[in-house]
């Protein structure tokens, strides 16, 4: 998958799952704040990423993935 394609898909599935406007998802935006994730809904995001992209985010990596750009990069290396 091309990176632009991957970014579009990430934005689309996250916006739909967490019911936010896709336009507020920008590369530098903080994921938790933008999607209004708490510790419980963070689990949903990890499960969604795994089911949509086949990539399991490791707990140690999760703490480092603060922005959407970091998430795109993480997936681009593994998807």
């Amino acid at each position, binding site marked *: 998958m091309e990176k632009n394609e991957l970014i579009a898909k990430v934005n689309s599935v996250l916006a739909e799952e967490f019911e936010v406007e896709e336009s507020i998802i920008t590369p530098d935006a903080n994921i938790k704040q933008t999607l209004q994730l708490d*510790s*419980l809904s*963070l*689990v*949903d995001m*990890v*499960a969604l990423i*795994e089911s949509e992209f086949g990539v*399991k985010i490791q*707990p140690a990596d*999760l703490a480092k993935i603060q922005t959407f750009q970091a998430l795109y990069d993480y997936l681009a290396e593994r998807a």
Partner: protein
Amino acid sequence: MMYRAEQLYQLIPQRPPIVMVDVVWSATETEAETGLTVTADNIFVRNGHFREPGLIEHIAQSAAAFAGCGTFLRGEEPKLGFIGEIKDCVLNMLPEVGTQLRTHIQLVTEVNGIRLISAETRIEGEMVASCIMKIFLKDDE
């Protein structure tokens, strides 16, 4: 490895009359099969049927027993689990006294001590209940 009766107390913190799993047929790192025979003296039975809270508790304890298999093999005490969320819950029937529930627990993912599991409960292959559940396992202080 199969666990029955009081062996289950090594897997879950609940004790009678609130124990809602009476057998663990199998468990791996990612899934488990548990069961419960509905008896007339079960506290969740009313008018000969196992009620909705009992089904949810059975699924939650099945997930706890699944987690407990891991802790037991590591020689640890079972952890207290809290239901964080239940979604996509479908209850198709209320089991009759004498029937045996068979529940398949599948670990979807685990993040920071919160487990996301999917559960399907059947009686002789017929779907009784299914749901997605988040369970927080409390670490000992």
